[in-house]
């Protein structure tokens, strides 16, 4: 009887051992994706999903990571916090992923944070909100540049042009609200006064009223914070009103789409942007150039449209994960630790340096200033 039990338990134990050892080296590493492919933020989620799919395929074609394939399990969150929480739970409990990429928006990310923190699964968000990584959460990283970095870029440029009073015009969604907060927060230290603080709705058809009010203020420049199509309407309305103030936009519109929508009204507009849209004109010495060109060309070959910096967030997330898995054993805890040890990673969004105190990892060098000239993006020197 005793013998039987001993034999049995040895069998089970060794089986378990073989199973765990084997499973770590043979089974594919599952990573989860939470992207808002439909719903209002689909302009973020779609390129992110496309990029993540493309990158995972590419990695698998070239032999995977240390001989193990990657498997991407992805769910559409529709930009809805409730669905994001459900999907994250499903990824962790049902699909048993080792790490999660996404969600696309700050709101969804904030909703998902308690879920991943409880489960101990690393998350690389593709959203920009500063709240995601400040204060630092053990398991949460992000690849999208902080809004504050974009704000600093604009304020630096304003100071250089000796402009000190600005009007801000922000959209009433998560992106705009976060931008507005940062614009107000950084103004005093940068010697900038906000003389008009206007808001528009994401579905508004006409922003003339806000612009007229701004015209009546003492503003020397306008900063508009939103994602397509709102800022394009602002640009057009400003042109219609004959407003001659310099117009700044956020990185939310740094894609060809903005120029297409705003048409001639886009000329001369300046905005901080990741380097994706100016990849071709960057100096050869730029450390990011190699990654940028690889991403832009691959995306174009795959999807026949230009890759934008939103897709770039997912590119960075997949490649950061890849390098973290390469350096460790691929378990969630090791991925997290190795992510935190990432130094000098030359990605699309910038050069990442994660530390235990900083899970966003970028400096304001992540942004360059670009302007529209003859319907093309040009670098501002």
């Amino acid at each position, binding site marked *: 009887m005793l013998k039987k039990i001993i034999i049995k338990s040895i069998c089970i134990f060794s089986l378990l051992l073989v199973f765990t050892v084997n499973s770590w080296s043979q089974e594919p590493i599952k990573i989860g994706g939470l992207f808002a*492919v439909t719903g209002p933020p689909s302009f973020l989620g779609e390129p992110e999903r496309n990029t993540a799919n493309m990158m995972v395929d590419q990695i698998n074609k070239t032999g995977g990571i240390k001989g193990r394939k990657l498997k991407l399990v992805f769910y559409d969150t529709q930009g809805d916090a*409730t669905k994001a929480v459900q999907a994250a739970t499903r990824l962790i*409990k049902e699909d048993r992923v080792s790490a999660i990429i996404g969600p696309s928006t700050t*709101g969804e990310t*904030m909703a998902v944070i308690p879920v991943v923190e*409880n489960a101990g699964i690393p998350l690389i968000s593709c959203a920009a909100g500063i*709240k995601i990584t400040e204060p630092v959460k053990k398991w949460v990283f992000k690849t999208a540049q902080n809004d504050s970095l974009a704000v600093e870029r604009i304020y630096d440029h304003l100071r250089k042009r000796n402009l000190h009073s600005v009007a801000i015009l922000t959209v009433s969604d998560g992106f705009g609200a976060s931008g507005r*907060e940062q614009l107000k927060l950084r103004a005093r230290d940068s010697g900038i006064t906000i003389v008009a603080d206007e808001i528009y709705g994401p579905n508004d058809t006409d922003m003339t009223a806000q612009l007229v009010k701004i015209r009546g203020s003492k503003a020397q420049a306008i900063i508009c914070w939103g994602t397509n199509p709102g800022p394009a309407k602002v640009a057009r309305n400003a042109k219609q009103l004959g407003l001659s103030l310099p117009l700044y936009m956020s990185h939310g519109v740094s894609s060809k789409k903005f120029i297409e929508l705003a048409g001639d009204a886009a000329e001369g507009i300046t905005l901080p942007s990741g380097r994706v849209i100016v990849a071709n004109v960057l100096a050869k010495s730029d450390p990011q150039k190699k990654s940028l060109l690889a991403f832009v060309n691959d995306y174009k070959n795959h999807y026949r449209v230009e890759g934008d910096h939103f897709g770039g967030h997912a590119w960075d997330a997949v490649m950061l994960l890849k390098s973290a898995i390469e350096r460790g054993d691929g378990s969630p805890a090791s991925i997290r630790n190795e992510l935190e040890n990432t130094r000098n990673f030359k990605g699309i969004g910038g050069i990442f340096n994660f530390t235990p105190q900083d899970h966003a990892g970028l400096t304001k060098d992540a942004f360059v200033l670009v302007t529209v000239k003859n319907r093309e993006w040009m670098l501002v020197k």
Partner: protein
Amino acid sequence: MKRELMKFLVFAAAVLTAPLFLKGGYIVNVLVFVGIYTILAVALNLLLGLAGQISLGQAAFFGLGAYISGVLTATYAANPWVAMVIAVIAVGAIAFALGFPILKLKGHYLAMATLGMGIIVYIIFNETVDITGGPSGLSGIPNLSIGGIVFNTDMKNYYLVWSFVIVTILLSVNLSQSRIGRALRAIHDSEVAARILGVNVRLLKVQIFTVSGIFSALAGSLYAHTVQFISPASFGFNVSIELLTMVIIGGLGSIYGSFLGAAILTLLPELFRTFQDYDIVVYGTVLIVMTMFMPGGLVRGVPLLARSLLVRVKAGLSSEKSV
């Protein structure tokens, strides 16, 4: 009466034992949301199915409950239970006050007024950034806890939420079986007739509107403390529409139908995940087809369908025999 009791007992037993068969997993998490939406759908059904008063702004009460609970606990560090009680009472008061002017309206006008109310409340959530956190949402809402038990896992939340669901359903079934329920049904059929029979129509309508608001606020508070994060997008116009759909699909006036509706509409997207981009089309089609062919909802529609199928099969068999 006995039948109602049996139904309730079976339901409660099923709810309590269900997790034993599910072995944890993410489905428990989905069921937590099914529970929250069941409370909301039952609340709307009391108003719409029982009293015949439409509301396209139900998400406003849901959101107010969530935000009052969330702000009190996250910003002012109140005890979550105290916050929940305050949220429920406050929303009840708001619903009572709003009910008097709004419920004077009927039919489409009532629909429009409640829709307007819902959208205005949604805009307030977005714009009062200093209080609600605006569009980026409010995080850091604590879990509920009793004694040493913190409701921080799906399984614990399941029992927490579903205890409230059971209480809600018990109260609602009682209400609809009571004298008040009969008076409300009388209003549904003909307000004038009800008035002639001595029913205080106006007060009763406002009261049921308040009860509906209170249940919705309870659901909101539960949502805030289980998800620990709220943002205006979860309480928009589309949520009101979704709730309406749950009630219609489940069956107007049927309390258990509302549970069915909530369960189906919450679980359906889980099944649709394989359709990816197509799910919005499938959702629209299902909505149209179900309302067209089962206007009484699943509760009445499925038995009817089964019966007519049975008749057809029998007819088919007999015709085969004759051949």
